[in-house]
């Protein structure tokens, strides 16, 4: 592990893991920032996205179609959940969170019923480009580079939407002061609904991509939720930049800890969270309120 090439390879792996972590956490942090909902069903949305992506990619062999399908199905699911349940509970924080816990149980169990208990992943042409590029004795899969590229594009897109468009302006204003923006004639109810749907769509797309890197198994929704929470807390609630930095930091720590500190490898992703909670409770990029 002292070979610099190996270090670079590990770092690249870290960045590809960070990419899926970012896609996982960005939706959750945006939803929290605007709506003050800890969406416990976020991991379940991610899992649904992964399963839909696997089904669609097997049928079509096209990754882009699979990603869009995963995002669309999860978005529809979130739309129904918001209109049918969460809208009736707006502003009641505990019931909102509890409903998303209930949703997690239902979605997780139905995924097990529909997709079975075996580990599944993207396969075939959807995982193009196959193979990898070789430097010396070290190879790195093209697919992981593609994943990094997708995450960067989506991340940049989110930042542009947030800071360059009218929608973004409404969202940022909504985060700062919901009453005032409602008084300005913005229908904050629908803004909330669409934010929830968009956050879920991000999770859905992320799930599809993740299924290309690792197989998914039933009940993994809780695992995804924990990872997402760690990144959101480290990055700061509601911050896209925080989610990006948090995802990269956590992923790199995780990858290198597995090599250098295998004994406490799992705890190392929680350690940054503990330090953040103690020294910077609002997270790296959280608003000072």
């Amino acid at each position, binding site marked *: 592990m002292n070979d610099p090439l190996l270090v670079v390879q590990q770092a690249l792996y870290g960045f590809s893991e960070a990419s899926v972590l970012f896609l996982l956490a960005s939706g959750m942090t945006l939803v929290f920032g605007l709506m003050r909902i800890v969406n416990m069903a976020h991991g379940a949305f991610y899992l649904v996205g992964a399963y839909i992506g696997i089904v669609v990619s097997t049928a079509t062999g096209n990754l882009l179609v699979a990603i869009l399908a995963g995002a669309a199905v999860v978005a529809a699911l979130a739309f129904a959940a918001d209109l049918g349940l969460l809208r009736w509970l707006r502003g009641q924080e505990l019931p909102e*969170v509890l409903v998303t816990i209930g949703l997690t149980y239902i979605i997780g169990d139905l995924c097990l019923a529909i997709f079975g208990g075996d580990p599944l992943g993207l396969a075939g042409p959807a995982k193009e480009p196959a193979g990898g590029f070789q430097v010396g004795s070290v190879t790195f899969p093209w697919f992981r580079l593609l994943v990094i590229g997708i995450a960067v594009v989506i991340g940049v897109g989110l930042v542009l939407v947030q800071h360059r468009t009218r929608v973004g302006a409404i969202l940022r204003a909504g985060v700062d002061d919901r009453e005032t923006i409602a008084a300005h004639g913005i229908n904050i109810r629908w803004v909330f609904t669409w934010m929830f749907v968009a956050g879920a769509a991000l999770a859905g797309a992320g799930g599809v991509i993740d299924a290309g890197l690792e197989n998914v198994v039933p009940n993994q929704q809780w695992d995804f939720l924990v990872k997402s929470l*760690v990144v959101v807390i480290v990055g700061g609630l509601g911050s896209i930049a925080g989610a990006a930095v948090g995802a990269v930091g956590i992923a790199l720590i995780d990858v290198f800890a597995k090599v250098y500190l295998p004994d406490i490898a799992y705890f190392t992703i929680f350690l940054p969270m503990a330090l953040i909670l103690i020294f910077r409770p*609002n997270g790296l990029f959280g608003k000072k309120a």
Partner: protein
Amino acid sequence: MTNPLTRATAVVRPATGLIPSLGGASRDRLTTTLQYVGLAVVLVLLVALPYLGLAPYYVNITTTTLCSALLAASVNFLLGQAGLVSMGQAGISTVAMYGVAWGFKQGWDLGGQLLLALVLTLVVSAIFGIVSMRTSGIYFMMVTLAAGMLVFGLAYSMSSITAADTGISVDRPGDLNSRFNYWQWYYLALAVFIVGTAILWVVSRSPFGASLRGIRDSESRMRSLGYNVAAYKVGAFMISGFVAGMAGVITLWNNKLVTSDSASITNSTLPIIVLVLGGVGTLLGPLVGAIVVTFFSIIMPSFFERWETLLGVVFILVIMFARAGIVGGLGRLYRWIRRRTGGSVRTPDVGTPVPTSNHRTTA
């Protein structure tokens, strides 16, 4: 105050309205009287249970129910009295489990095991309390959730001590291990359950409990009255944590095993589900909720595979339409019947405040 979370919560004021929106039947006198009657019936039933000719299997299931009810009761204390939702309660009970299990593995006697569990539980509860004491509402949930995840991460990683997901196996104390002594083990668990519930009940009735309810209803008012709100929250967390530790110890002996999974996020959310189904802020709610959840998770799988889906649906329906839970709902039903039949109904005294207007305007 330097902690920025404090200001954020001061603006949003999430703590108020949590309880009114979820039951809040705690101080309604009629419901309380009903609960005493119910309590007496339940106690007699529980004590007589092994003599009712039940198969050992069902007595054992009842023991499991008591374990999960006591953990839910510790969550109930924080939520019902202080208006705080701990989403990391399984972390605390798991620490107590490891205290006993590790002592057992070292060959310590029972006193040593329990002492280690006690010290660990109190220390970890204090840490939970300190990291969360300046927060309330949704931020309190996040911080306790994170603290619970930390315990899980530690338990999973320090495998030389905790054996991670393989776990540590223990024997029950004395000769309770034999499966023929299932009913003696049942009585021990029942005793722990009753003591734990009694502790929470006594503290709730004390001036300390009244102060917690004051904090629940208006944190800023209590602060301006000179109460050290943060200290009260830490104190409440340590009492709740102590009982969660008791629940952990009987759960450990019941399963004869502790793994890192005991602290998982699923095990932390389960007591909340138990509590909400049974009725937040009610004395019998945790037990009733635990009976329901045990029925779903242990008895139902033998004839209905999708019990998790059904539990989720029932849980969501309760949140949407029957916030008071089963116990609180029965109290309301009773009042309604009394009104219909022309009996006099004492209106709830004191009462909990209705959700404040700022919740509506934010929606």
